[in-house]
């Protein structure tokens, strides 16, 4: 595997402490937790050996259950058994064109839809957190202790609100989120590192409820996403629903109860799965009313009734290709991800479109979680020799602000590589105007009303001037999670008035703290213990990093600087073994301060090396 042989010329031989890091695929239908063991990514199974956890939560009389036990309540308790909650993340009631399809009792919450359950009102964030918590506990049991961090995957086409909601759910489940990672990109990491591939690949990811198409360039250990497109409300669920509608129509049964809807939807899913390997299947069951449904479905009929859905996946494919300025012939391989890509009509359509048989050599249900585990391992500081790869991802949808006339002014274009910072200047339109409302939106359409509203805030304290004289600089920053923060500043007359916002579609930090308390994820002493553990992990990481830096680049320091770092280091070492987390935090901060200039000088040295081509030469040998 040529790809894996690339190594840093100055890679240290000092072993670092291993951190407990996991990748989590939080799917519409199934979820998965994986980790890297002895250099290999593996899914962590439950006690019965099952890797997949059905993304189903039942709020029963005796509390919440998740996974297989909850599946058993699907038909008997439809309104308190939540499936496909991922489709509700970061969504208001108005966004849910298919709200009637769900048997839940919806209520409108602050920015996001809520569900009335036996346990009370629950947000999609809380429901998702139940699933994530089970996966966290599974991983902790398997790895023998608290997790240092997790990479959680999201559909590449998730907007800011959906990403923020996912991150909130993970925090609520007690996870330290190292990164939100795009699902097709996670799959590409697992695929690329496994197959030592070079070239331009498309990842076709059709899950239970979301569809992504990403185009990546794999070259010398760099995974560069060129473009991504998708549909966050299109997946295997929709194919099940077609069969369900067909069955209702054929058997001429009228409106059915929520329980019977669930039953028929489950039968529909079984039929769909049967048709992967068979030319025909039975669709049979008895409703609670005693009515009998007895139908036969052929693969050809199924393909015909889902033709539009299949067509809907190809529109984003064309869009991504256009954005990347490529044609289907430029694609070296199409990697299939997500259980729904098992459907023969999907395989056929993708093969025909690209003129090449799609690649199916990885388990479509696991590949995303495995890729996330590989990324988590590296981000947690377990980077081993051979892990010298880099991921360059993009933002899926344009970001902008509302201007006069309800139109959008784009500031960050879609498919821009992240992290990215972009600013634009605006001015006042009235004499003496001292405040300006800023409305942040995401989407491709020109009219603000057709885009997603992310946040509104006001910049106050603009010095009174004639219209057009003020210069207001609005700065957008998108971090490596694809999350946005916005700030605005008045530039003339030396007056500064700045405000920073986080899109408020998700939950505020205070909300998270309150919910954490309410759900009693951690009792007080648990919190204390956790803080100490986290402090120790930080300290250990810093000790290892500092030792390694001293081993390789001590010549950048004079004697006094070196002495200062050594004594701060000794203090951290001493306190890492004690039980006073506050003293440890102080010592860690002191060591951080002492090593700041050193870190910058080392970065400087590495960059010069990179630019003078030393590293480039090493790479081309790989």
């Amino acid at each position: 595997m040529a790809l894996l042989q690339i190594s840093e010329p100055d890679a240290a031989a000092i072993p670092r402490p291993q951190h407990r890091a996991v990748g989590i695929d939080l799917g519409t239908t199934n979820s998965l937790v994986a980790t890297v063991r002895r250099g290999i990514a593996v899914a962590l199974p439950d006690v019965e050996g099952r890797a997949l956890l059905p993304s189903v939560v039942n709020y029963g009389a005796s509390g919440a259950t998740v996974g297989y036990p909850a599946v058993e309540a699907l038909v008997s308790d439809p309104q308190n058994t939540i499936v496909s909650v991922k489709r509700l993340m970061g969504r208001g009631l108005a966004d849910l064109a298919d709200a009637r399809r769900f048997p839940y009792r919806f209520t409108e919450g602050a920015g996001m839809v809520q569900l009335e359950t036996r346990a009370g009102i629950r947000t999609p964030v809380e429901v998702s957190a139940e699933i994530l918590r089970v996966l966290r506990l599974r991983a902790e049991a398997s790895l023998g202790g608290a997790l240092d961090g997790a990479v959680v995957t999201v559909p590449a086409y998730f907007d800011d609100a959906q990403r923020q909601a996912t991150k909130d759910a993970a925090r609520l489940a007690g996870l330290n989120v190292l990164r939100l990672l795009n699902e097709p990109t996670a799959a590409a990491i697992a695929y690329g590192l496994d197959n030592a591939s070079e070239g331009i690949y498309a990842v076709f990811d059709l899950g239970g409820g979301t569809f992504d198409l990403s185009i990546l360039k794999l070259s010398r250990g760099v995974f560069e996403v060129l473009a991504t497109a998708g549909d966050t409300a299109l997946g295997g669920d929709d194919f099940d629903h077609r069969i369900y509608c067909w069955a209702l129509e054929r058997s001429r049964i009228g409106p059915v109860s929520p329980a019977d809807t669930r039953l028929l939807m489950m039968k529909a899913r079984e039929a769909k799965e049967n048709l992967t390997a068979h030319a025909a299947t039975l669709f049979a069951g008895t409703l609670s009313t005693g009515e009998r449904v007895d139908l036969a479905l052929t693969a050809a009929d199924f393909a015909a009734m889902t033709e539009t859905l299949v067509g809907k996946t190809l529109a984003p494919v064309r869009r991504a290709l256009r954005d990347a300025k490529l044609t289907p012939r430029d694609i070296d391989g199409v990697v299939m991800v997500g259980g729904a890509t098992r459907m023969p009509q999907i395989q056929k359509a993708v093969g025909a479109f690209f003129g090449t048989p799609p690649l199916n050599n990885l388990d479509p249900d696991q590949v995303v979680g495995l890729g996330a585990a590989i990324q988590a391992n590296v981000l947690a500081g377990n980077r081993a020799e051979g892990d010298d790869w880099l991921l360059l991802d993009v933002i899926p949808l344009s970001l902008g602000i509302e201007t006069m006339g309800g139109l959008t002014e784009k500031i960050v274009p879609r498919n821009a590589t992240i992290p990215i910072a972009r600013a634009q200047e605006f001015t006042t339109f009235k004499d003496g105007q001292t405040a300006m409302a800023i409305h942040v939106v995401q989407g491709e359409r020109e009219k603000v009303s057709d885009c997603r509203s992310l946040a509104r805030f006001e910049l106050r304290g603009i010095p009174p001037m004639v219209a057009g004289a003020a210069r207001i600089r609005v700065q957008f920053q998108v971090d490596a999670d694809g999350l946005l923060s916005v700030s605005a500043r008045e530039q003339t007359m030396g007056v500064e008035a700045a405000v920073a916002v986080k899109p408020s579609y998700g939950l505020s930090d205070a909300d998270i703290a309150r919910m954490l308390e309410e759900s009693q994820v951690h009792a007080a002493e648990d919190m204390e213990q956790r803080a100490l553990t986290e402090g120790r992990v930080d300290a250990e990481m810093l000790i290892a990093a500092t030792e390694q830096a001293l081993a390789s680049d001590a010549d950048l320091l004079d004697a006094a600087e070196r002495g200062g770092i050594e004594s701060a280091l000794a203090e951290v070492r001493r306190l890492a073994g004690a039980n006073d987390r506050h003293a440890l935090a102080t010592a860690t901060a002191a060591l951080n301060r002492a090593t700041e200039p050193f870190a910058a000088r080392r970065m400087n040295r590495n960059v010069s090396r990179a630019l003078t081509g030393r590293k480039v030469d090493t790479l081309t040998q790989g």
Partner: protein
Amino acid sequence: MRLRRELQRLIDFSQDYFALFGLAPRYRFDPEQLERAYRALQREIHPDRHAAGDEAQRRLAAQSSARVNEAYRALKDPVERAQYLLSLRGIDALAETNTALPVEFLERELERREAVADAEATGDAPRLDDLLRTVRADGSGLESRLAEELDRESWDAARDSVRELKFLAKVADDIETALAALES
């Protein structure tokens, strides 16, 4: 803050984009060289490479990485690169005082816009695809002209070419939006 000053030296925020990648400030260059330098830089400064560092280090990494992404984007795209080269000469190609485009260019583009509108109204996707291809072909022709103008330092001519290219890019963008709307 000392760390910040150190970083400004290494990803010197005052140096131009070409210098950032160790390239001569010329329009025509080896795109492979730009890509190699971009990747080498990101390998050092990308936030993923500093995930285990302290907060200041992570912030610096994010900031430098964003700067390098922005520079790469500006140089990779031919029109943006030309615009950037002109801006290094103090010429703002899109300043509102320079609104004039040649009449024959405008006439041709007006016709093209009508054709696009017609195809859009009748939902004629193949025709839109055709129009997109010709706009792009015209664009690459214009790019070669622009390259020559920049090479012989005819700044005014280059500025006009950039304006025309920007116009074509907008037309191409509109056609793509129309195509996307037809597909969904």
